[in-house]
């Protein structure tokens, strides 16, 4: 059968088949879909930016409500950086996306560029998305570990567990992103490159599609080693701290405890509340507060403490940690314990 016969048969099908449709209904449906689609695309593009920015007031609120060490606030610039990066990228690359009415060749070219950029973004997700909050969280854990180093190996294990948990979550996010690159974006990019090669001039037609960012398609071992190195350093520092007998500083918890704990503690040191009146159940669940109370009571019960004069402690109102002498809430008069 020659090509002209094929053409005839092909064109004859138009007279054999037609589309049955209700144009008004279809139009309505298409318009409804357009609205849904616009909303969907908008939220897909902004949800992570919005999520990052919404986290900032939460972090600030938590920092104010539960007195947390200064390193907690490192999360704020980290989140702002992540959200800002995504927003800037979205604005910058929105213009270069493919348009439905472009010629096939231009459409394929812009689609390939877009996919290539997505691949670049996801391959480097560690640097722009994971590491900034990762460092902030590690710094926070590091500071907390330093403040609780008196707790010994248990504290070290607890903090190390938290670090590993966060590292596992981050590694999971990283793996998911790399999986998306391997399973969806790279095949799509290769497909687009094949199409591009098919549409290129005859002289260029034989070009074989290359791999986007060839040579870096395998997961970069250096990145993993870097991340593991940071975790290792932190774990090592924690271990060293737990082994070394550096001055027990449970009183540091007092510096972090909420004012009502400080008042409670000062009242206890003042002798106005007997230890028996404060049951286990009344201990606050907040870690810092719990530690503060434990520190406050254990020092007086296990060591022969002489509480400072109440005037110096100034109980109940307007207390600051320095006013009640949190660095050394009671002076030890005898080294022996009962």
């Amino acid at each position, binding site marked *: 059968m020659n090509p002209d016969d*094929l053409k005839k048969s092909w064109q004859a099908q138009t007279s054999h088949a037609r589309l049955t449709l209700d144009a008004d209904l279809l*139009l309505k449906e298409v318009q409804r879909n357009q609205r849904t689609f616009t909303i969907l695309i908008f939220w897909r593009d902004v949800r992570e930016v919005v999520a990052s920015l919404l986290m900032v007031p939460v972090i600030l609120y938590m920092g104010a409500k539960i007195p947390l060490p200064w390193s907690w606030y490192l999360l704020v610039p980290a989140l702002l950086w992540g959200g800002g990066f995504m927003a800037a990228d979205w604005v910058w690359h929105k213009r270069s996306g493919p348009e439905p009415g472009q010629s096939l060749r231009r459409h*394929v070219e812009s689609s390939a560029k877009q996919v290539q950029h997505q691949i670049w973004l996801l391959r480097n997700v560690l640097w722009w998305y994971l590491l900034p909050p990762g460092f902030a969280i590690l710094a926070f854990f590091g500071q907390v570990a330093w403040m609780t180093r008196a707790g010994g190996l248990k504290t070290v294990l607890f903090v190390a567990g938290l670090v590993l948990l966060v590292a596992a979550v981050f590694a999971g996010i990283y793996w998911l992103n790399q999986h998306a690159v391997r399973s969806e974006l790279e095949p799509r990019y290769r497909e687009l490159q094949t199409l591009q090669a098919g549409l290129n001039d005859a002289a260029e037609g034989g070009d074989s599609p290359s791999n986007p960012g060839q040579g870096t398609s395998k997961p970069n071992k250096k990145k993993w080693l870097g991340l593991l190195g940071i975790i290792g350093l932190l774990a090592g520092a924690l271990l060293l701290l737990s082994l070394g007998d550096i001055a027990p500083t449970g009183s540091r918890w007092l510096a972090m405890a909420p004012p009502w704990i400080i008042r409670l503690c000062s009242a206890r040191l003042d002798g106005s509340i007997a230890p028996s009146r404060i049951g286990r159940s009344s201990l606050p669940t907040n870690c810092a507060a719990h530690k503060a109370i434990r520190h406050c009571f254990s020092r007086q019960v296990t060591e022969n403490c002489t509480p400072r004069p109440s005037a110096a402690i100034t109980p109940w109102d307007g207390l600051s940690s320095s006013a009640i002498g949190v660095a050394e809430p009671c002076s030890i008069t005898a080294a022996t314990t009962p």
Partner: protein
Amino acid sequence: MTEPSPETRFKQWLEEYGGTVLKVARAYTLKAEDCQDLAQEILFQIWRSLPRFQGRSSASTWVYRVALNTALGWRRKEGRRWARQQPLLEPEELPDPVSSSSGQLDQREVVERLYAAIRQLPKADAALVLLYLDDLSYREIAEVLGISESNVGVKLNRAKKALAELMKEVANEP
């Protein structure tokens, strides 16, 4: 003369190019439901593209561009958007009053074989063959694909040969 509203233009295009949309959708899908999903997606993209249509190219070139761009980038999971809906368009077979019933059957068989062969071609070649079979000129094909007319000639010759080979293979299949 005033410009027609997007709604009016869309309906006009549906009337004129509904068959083209269907052919492109059929050429790039295997199953009937996928074909419907893709056809609806193409119509949706045509609607989306309407505000950008400035009349610098012909309506047919525009529709072919949108249809092929959508078909080449379409993945089955994208069809889920339409999957929950009642199909809004349905291909309908019409009796041909002129040709004999055996002639019709022959032609239909040829068309089926053509679709089967086109689906096996590389996607860019399939687009080229579709445009050729729809009797577009080299200039129009070049406009739709964004390549030079001479390149259209070279590529079309290759694609036609490949299509002829595939047609033979398809015919030999049980």
